[in-house]
């Protein structure tokens, strides 16, 4: 097993990040100078109520959206306003996404969904299938490989999505409310799966509004009105709450 947080290596480093959205003639200032550092192998949650700016932050970290001001470094690479081609390439190389609504492609079966990022990576079809099956096995869904998403339960769908996020062996897994559409029992098992993946050394950032979920990570970054309210280890955070 790999050692947990390696010092001095920042997987994600954000300095004085600002983001505004135009709403009509007005401009909505969503992120107001965020500073965040995530080391390799960390299991972090970004928590906040709706409107706190957490989804915007995930989109920026996930290279799905660009920022207005500030500096964002991903695995040592400075991210500046980039073109779509480069963005797609970096997403494919560095990031694995897990979404609240799973976002599986409805007409592709489980293994085909898992194999899709490899297709964009330029991996041959045979190897894609082997890899996809390997990762489906990892999330315990090998027997379901040939099932379409609508033949799977919510928990199973999210496992397929996790396998898809892992298949390219990315640097960071970004999970946007990964348990938002699941019951509490299934949520726990999904979080356990993520924990297991983190134990193997993967950096994971979870976005959530639920305390219960955030508590299952190692570090909680609390976001409110576009600013970081607190950034502490889960145990410290819990102690504070109890006081």
């Amino acid at each position, binding site marked *: 097993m790999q050692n947990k947080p390696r010092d001095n290596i920042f997987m994600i480093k954000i300095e004085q990040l600002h983001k505004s959205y135009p709403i009509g003639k007005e401009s909505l200032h969503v992120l107001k100078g965020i500073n965040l550092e995530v080391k390799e192998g960390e299991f972090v949650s970004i928590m906040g109520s709706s409107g706190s700016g957490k989804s915007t932050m995930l*989109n920026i970290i*996930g290279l*799905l*959206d660009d920022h207005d001001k500030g500096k964002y470094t991903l695995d040592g690479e400075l991210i500046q306003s980039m073109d*779509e*081609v480069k963005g*797609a*390439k970096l*997403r*494919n*190389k560095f990031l694995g*996404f897990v*979404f609240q609504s799973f*976002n*599986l*492609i*409805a*007409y*592709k079966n489980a293994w085909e969904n898992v194999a*899709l*990022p490899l*297709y*964009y*990576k330029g991996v041959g*079809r045979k190897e894609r299938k082997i890899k996809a099956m390997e990762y489906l096995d990892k999330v315990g869904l090998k027997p379901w490989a040939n099932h379409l998403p609508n033949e799977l339960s919510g928990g199973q769908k999210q496992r397929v999505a996790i396998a*898809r996020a892992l298949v*390219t062996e990315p640097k960071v897994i970004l999970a946007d409310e990964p348990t938002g559409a699941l019951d509490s029992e299934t949520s726990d098992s999904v979080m356990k799966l993520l924990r297991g993946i983190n134990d193997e050394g993967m950096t994971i950032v979870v976005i959530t509004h639920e305390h219960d979920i955030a508590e299952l990570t190692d570090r909680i970054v609390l976001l409110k009105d576009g600013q970081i309210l607190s950034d502490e280890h889960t145990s410290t955070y819990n102690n504070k709450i109890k006081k």
Partner: protein
Amino acid sequence: MFDIWREIFQNVTKNKLRSILTGVTVAFSILLFTLLFGVVNGFKNSFMKNFKDDASNAIFIHVGSTSKAYKGFQSGRRIRFENKDYNYIKKQFGDDIEFITGRVFRGEQISYKGNKDRYSIRAVHPDHKFLEVTVMQTGRYITNLDLKKRAKNIVIGRLVEKDLFEGRSALGKQLNLGGINFKVVGVFSDDGGEREERTVYMPITTAQGIYGNNQYIDQFVLSSRKSMSVDEAIAFGKKIENILKARFNIAPNDQSALRMQNMSETNKEVNSFFTILTVFVFVIAFGTLIAGIIGVSNIMVYIVKERTKELGIRKALGAPPSHIISMVLYESVFLTMISGYIGLLLGGLILDWSSELLEDYGILNPSVETSQVVGATLILVVSGAVAGFLPARRAARIKPVVALRAD
């Protein structure tokens, strides 16, 4: 490359309704296009068949009786061509004439063993073969030597052989023509129909000797030099008419003594008629195709809209914009081509089935030319691409976040 087609094939087969919608639109417009052009082509074919019998630059010269008094001659005078006129025309217009023949017409009872029937006989010069577009099946045609020797040789039509010889070869056999024996030296076929193939050719000199011991010729057929334009050929016909009318002292406006039938003139009229018809049909067919194209565009816009979320997912997973564009584009082209082909095939089959029925209405062998089909397919492919490109580019430009938010 193969992978992207696999993706597209999956898109098409897993999303049946929208694929079928697109396909039917395209197939239907190509079907209409095929039928329209097929029927017009059939109409053209049956029209052209009537002219196919003879060379397209042929000029027929008939003689009759004068209808007007001229230069001291009474009206009602009978005009007759003779061998010397044949030589005169050849001498006067030699360079401008490709082929020339005289014709003497007869009808005779012909018998071979027990079989006999009446057939029309044409006594001709050797050039007649090219003017009438006679195709030799076996043996040879009338030659200059036959003319010189006034040989009792004949060339018979395919159907004459069939009637009299019951499937056996007539070549070299002696036939009885109204009491005189002739030797069959050739058998021919002719696109002009059954009447032409029930005809018998003999040397013109032989006929002149046997049937009246004279030098008369009933009719001239000649063709103008190939390099002449249609208008030149028409002018050439007029020139011959004027010179012959002067030679025989016929009033220039006398319509019955000397009649010219210039195929170039007829062809010109027919061609301009079909040009107009083709342009007209092309406009209609083009409209049909445009309707198909608009249909495809509509569906492609809908498809991209419907797939915005999926495209967003693909982008999040690392699909570059070029991939999104080509995926939508190829799908559009793929669907257009496949269904266009189905429409074409369907149209071809319908034309095939109905061709017998249509023949009764003067539409012969309806079909579309390859060039027209290729043209239509090209238009479809290009339009499929154009129809797909604009929505595809829009889809590729949407930010993944926006696309993912869509439902």
